[in-house]
């Protein structure tokens, strides 16, 4: 029998998760939400502090004199520039320059790196390490991870950690201690807000959870499930594998694959780094010739939406959660793209979406139309192309 795994925090999350809406994430069970509605959890991310169990992230430790050689070969960013204590967000591609996966890469010391991914990556890493002197260890199960997100997150950590976290700059990490437990804290996250990810030996998971909940009490900390995080990440313009792009490992046809340029990750493709890296020739070609698709933001125009609903005698009906579904996008009567995730943004009070648009329709300001379902009928609401992210508080990077 196939059994989904429990994360190291399950003893706590199981009791807290009222709706029992467990979600599958990389073979693990995680809470969709802890409360019956997502409102409070969403607002914890934006206003206070949200504690999210992200242990199912795949994690790999890459150690050895040739570790940087391997990573430079696999990922698109220039690893020679990654300093000890720094974190890169990066994607990696197949030989045709199409995205396989994306994740964060932390340099823990001179020759040790930690890579996170959404999909199992051990085989790909090993395949690329032929002849190299290094060791690749999968630490997905042995390392627990919590994401603490929201404007109060630094205050929570300062209250319970031995060393203040204020000094950690955006996409940097530090070693710290909490009640005598060694932890690593990176200033990273998936919400576009001030936030941290905390990396813990799985055996220490529960005391760390408890300490954070206790320290966060005065700062409005709330356990938050992945559904509220899904809304926040769309506002932040962050895409997700399998819903916003298909890993080239899983694509049946070429049309299902995406390049980093098409996903707006051109800034992570360092064609100026020396030597071969996987996908380089194809990526260089795409950079020269330009991409035919681009991931952009789409804002539905409220008046137009309201009018469609008014026709059937209803006020606008929008689910107050992210919808991971493909919705056609048109220019006139012609389909020129599709939305991969749409959400109501409680903060912006807008219906927003991540949209894959064909050239030349991806220019900001372009007026398009996006499918909405009005009383069981498919209709098209007017929408405008905008740059991502939709929302970026000034404290995110400060």
């Amino acid at each position, binding site marked *: 029998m196939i059994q989904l795994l429990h994360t190291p925090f399950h003893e706590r999350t199981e009791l807290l998760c009222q709706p029992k809406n467990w979600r599958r994430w990389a073979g693990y069970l995680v809470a969709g939400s802890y409360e019956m509605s997502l409102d409070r959890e969403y607002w914890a991310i934006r206003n206070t502090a949200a504690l999210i169990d992200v242990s199912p992230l795949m994690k790999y430790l890459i150690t050895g004199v040739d570790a940087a*050689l391997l990573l430079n*070969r696999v990922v698109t960013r220039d690893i020679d520039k990654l300093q000890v204590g720094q974190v890169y967000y990066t994607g990696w591609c197949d*030989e045709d320059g199409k995205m396989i996966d994306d994740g964060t890469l932390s340099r823990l010391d001179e020759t040790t790196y930690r890579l996170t991914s959404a999909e199992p990556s051990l085989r*790909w890493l090993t*395949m*690329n390490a*032929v*002849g*190299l002197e290094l060791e690749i260890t999968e630490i997905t199960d042995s390392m627990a991870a919590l994401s603490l997100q929201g404007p109060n997150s630094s205050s929570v950590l300062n209250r319970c950690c031995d060393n203040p976290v204020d000094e950690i700059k955006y996409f940097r990490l530090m070693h710290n201690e909490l009640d005598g437990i060694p932890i690593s804290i990176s200033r990273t996250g998936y919400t576009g807000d001030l936030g941290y990810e905390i990396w813990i030996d799985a055996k220490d998971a529960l005391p760390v959870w408890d300490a954070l909940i206790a320290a966060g009490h005065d700062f409005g900390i709330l356990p938050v499930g992945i559904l509220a995080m899904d809304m926040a990440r769309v506002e932040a313009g962050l895409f997700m594998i399998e819903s916003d792009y298909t890993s080239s490992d899983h694509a049946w046809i070429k049309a299902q694959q995406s390049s980093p340029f098409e996903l707006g990750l051109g800034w992570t493709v360092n064609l100026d780094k020396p*030597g*071969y890296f*996987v996908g380089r*020739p194809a990526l260089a070609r795409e950079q020269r010739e330009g991409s035919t698709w681009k991931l952009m933001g789409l804002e539905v125009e409220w008046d137009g939406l309201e009018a469609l609903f008014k026709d059937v005698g209803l006020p606008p009906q929008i689910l107050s959660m992210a919808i991971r579904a493909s919705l056609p996008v048109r220019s006139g009567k012609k389909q020129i793209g599709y939305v991969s995730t749409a959400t109501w943004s409680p903060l912006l009070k807008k219906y927003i979406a991540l949209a894959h648009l064909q050239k030349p329709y991806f220019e900001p300001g372009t007026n398009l139309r996006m499918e909405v379902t009005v009383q069981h009928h498919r209709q098209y609401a007017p929408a405008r192309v905008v740059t991502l992210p939709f929302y970026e508080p000034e404290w995110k990077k400060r």
Partner: protein
Amino acid sequence: MKTYDAIIIGAGHNGLVSAAYLAKAGKQVLVLESRAIPGGTLVTEEFDGFMADMVQSGNLCPDIIRNLKLARFGLKPKPVSEIPAFISLLPDSDILVLESDPVKAAESIKRFSPKDAARWPDFLTFMEKATKFLESAYDTLMPRLPKVSLSEGYSLAELALDLRLAGRKNMLNIIRVIPMTAVEFLEEWFESEQLKAAVASVGIHGVTLGVMSAGTTFNLIHNWLNRGGLAHQYLGRAGQVTDALVAAAEAYGAEMRLSAEVTSIKIEDNQAAGVVLKDGEEISAQTVLSSADPKRTFLTLVGPMELSPTFVWHTQSIKMRGSVAKLHLGLKSLPDGMAADTTYTIAPALNYLERAYDAAKYGQISEKPYLEVTTSENVISIHFQYAPYKLKQGAWNDKRDTLEKLAVDTLAVHFPELQSSIVKSKLLTPADLETTYSLTEGDLNHGQIMLDQFMFMRPIPGWSNHKTPIDGLYLCGSGVHAGGGISGASGRNAAKVVSKEI
């Protein structure tokens, strides 16, 4: 500093053929050979005062001999009447003598089966047609499936025509038998165990397969083509063929440097830029041809970091697995009953051969080995199968005595005086073949001759047209299509591809 149009890694016969063709076409060519003598495996080498041929046959394709005018440099094919016999040594001092003259051969076969004797000429005709087809295939560049370009399509159509010219029945038959086991194929022709086993031995020669393995009929046709029949034919001693190739290449203007091991191929922006030698010297050239085996070329000389992961993986997956050892015996004189310049096979029965192979499957040395023995005036050279490169137990250096004794004892059954006439011996284990001759895993052919590594899949699917993922780097050795064994075909084909591009 002198610049070269092309650098060729390895002065084996294929590297030399490429060099001669390119030099003749007016290119500035430099051949770099790691050993102190040229020839690769096509060499006659001295050991303790005896001269031994490493390989049994030294045939080159007739068009290479013609085009490079090798006769001028001392090479002349021998007349058919001088082609030696292929003799199967059987228990109880019996022998089956397969002379190249079909009438004489039929005489010998008759003692074992009159029916087989009657079929022998038809069998030779069929093998003639099959080898002709293979020869055309080895003269055709294989396409990069599944995309076939117009010019590739044209030469493929020509190949299909050659096949068609063999006659409709023969055409279907050739295609039908290629994947068969040697046993199945020969059982369709003959009833005599002795005859079937003698011929089948050529189907397993040089490969780590048994007579009951699929595709050994293909290897039989392949070896038959390279040998020019069952027995090994001689253009001369192995070293003389190499001498002629060196003389020709140099006469056409190629330069050769011996004791010049290439440690890496320089690559700039996915383009070959030259080579680095062991002593650190760098030599530049935009075109590099490698006759080192594909595994060595890509994984050591180019290095996996310059190549895509899938390509590296496919290269790692090339089956090398050598299982041949070579034993040269220097003698006072040939033992009684043994003739010079003759090929003997110890392949008395099909089951005997298959059991010899069984050992290899389990990483063991065959207790009752298949031997092929070639002779000169005072040296006999024993090709020993199976001696697997990867031993299940122990290291090759500890097995030398075991192997030598096995080989000598097996042969001495037929020549009792052998033991006492041995003066010196020289053993080459698969490990020696790797260290001395740069044959990865001791694989004679730079990659097994098997169905999933032939034609458009040699060395790996998509890369059988001599080109490589690195611009300006080409393969010209045995590991690429048309290669495997002595013929020069892959060296010739590579030169044709390269001269079109530089």
